[in-house]
């Protein structure tokens, strides 16, 4: 399965079904972040149910504290 994250192609070797699993796979589960999935902004409680399909596009922005 191939998806795009922040404009870059990402090849997923193992099957990923939900956005929550995707975040885990990308090692992002600890971050506070906002996700746009195929141009729709997801609310946090949608991460578990949103299904990931081949060719999906994601924009992921995480909050950082440095300054």
């Amino acid at each position, binding site marked *: 399965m191939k998806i795009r994250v922040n404009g870059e192609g990402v090849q997923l070797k193992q099957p990923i079904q939900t956005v929550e699993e995707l975040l885990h796979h990308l090692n992002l589960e600890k971050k506070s972040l906002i996700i746009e999935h195929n141009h729709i902004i997801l609310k946090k409680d949608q991460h578990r149910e949103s299904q990931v399909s081949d060719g999906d596009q994601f924009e992921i*922005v995480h909050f950082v*504290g440095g*300054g």
Partner: protein
Amino acid sequence: MLSDNRYHRQMLFEPIGEAGQRSIQESHVLIIGVGALGSSSSEMLVRAGVGKITLMDRDYVEESNLQRQQLFSEEDVKNQTPKVIAAKNRLQAINSHTIIEAKVIDVGVEELDSIAEEVDVIIDATDNFDTRLIINDICQKYRKPWVYGACVASYGVTFTVLPDETPCLQCLMDHIPNDGATCDTVGIISPAVQMVVAHQVTEVIKLLTDNQDALSGKLIAFDLWKNQQMELKVATLKDENCPSCSQAKYPNLEYQAQVKTAVLCGRNTVQIRAGTQKNFHFIQFKEHLKDLNLTNFFSNPYLVSFEIDPFRIVVFKDGRTLIHGTKNPQEAKKLYYRFVG
């Protein structure tokens, strides 16, 4: 002649013009934190001719700051000059017309509560989420816009919060990230700082010159090293049950005023701040320490520092204390009580 020419190029820029320039010169901007982000944004705004700028920061200049904190010099490192004082000196040399108020303080609820009403906009240039959430709620309480900005490594993120219009930081963040990624652990490159500030200051100038229609309205992030740019329209995330921006409960303004310790992320340092240190007599304290023949004793008008192997202790004029060399608040408190009381 200087006054005729000084802002000419900025006024030529059509959305600003003469009227915009007048507004800029009549405005008051509060910048919280004068590290990398605050150094850069304050310099841009002073050059732009902002009438008054208030700077707040708790720290003094260290050698590792010089790589990106553009207002500071080696001299400031040598003198352990508080950042806001060093910044003010440099900014005032750049533009003597701007009124610059420099406050060596650890920004908390009280400090912001007493100033928020009189400023036009607040720029977030802090290095931690605790302070950002206080800024978030104060700005809701006083209906002031503020511009979140942060960066680490080659990544940066920024968002303009407008009360009653946009989501606030409390709406957008479901938890405070604690993944250990700070400027002290994964580093920071200077262009990432400047990119965040370019967005922040542009938004501030739009706000000050009555160009609200031009505001981005987006959560903007980038990674300069990975060549990525993200812009998310997050308006739909405004939470109707948000305690900060919808219910006016301002949860981040509660539980203050007691003695507080904070482990400064990645710096192997604990900060101790007494609730109301009004009785702290800095000059007497300094005299007293001088008699103790402490290792590497140093003082300037704003702070004293000395070493108790393996720790370095820095005590500011208001009694606030940094214990370098530990991450353990209990251990730090012991030293604090031993020397500061």
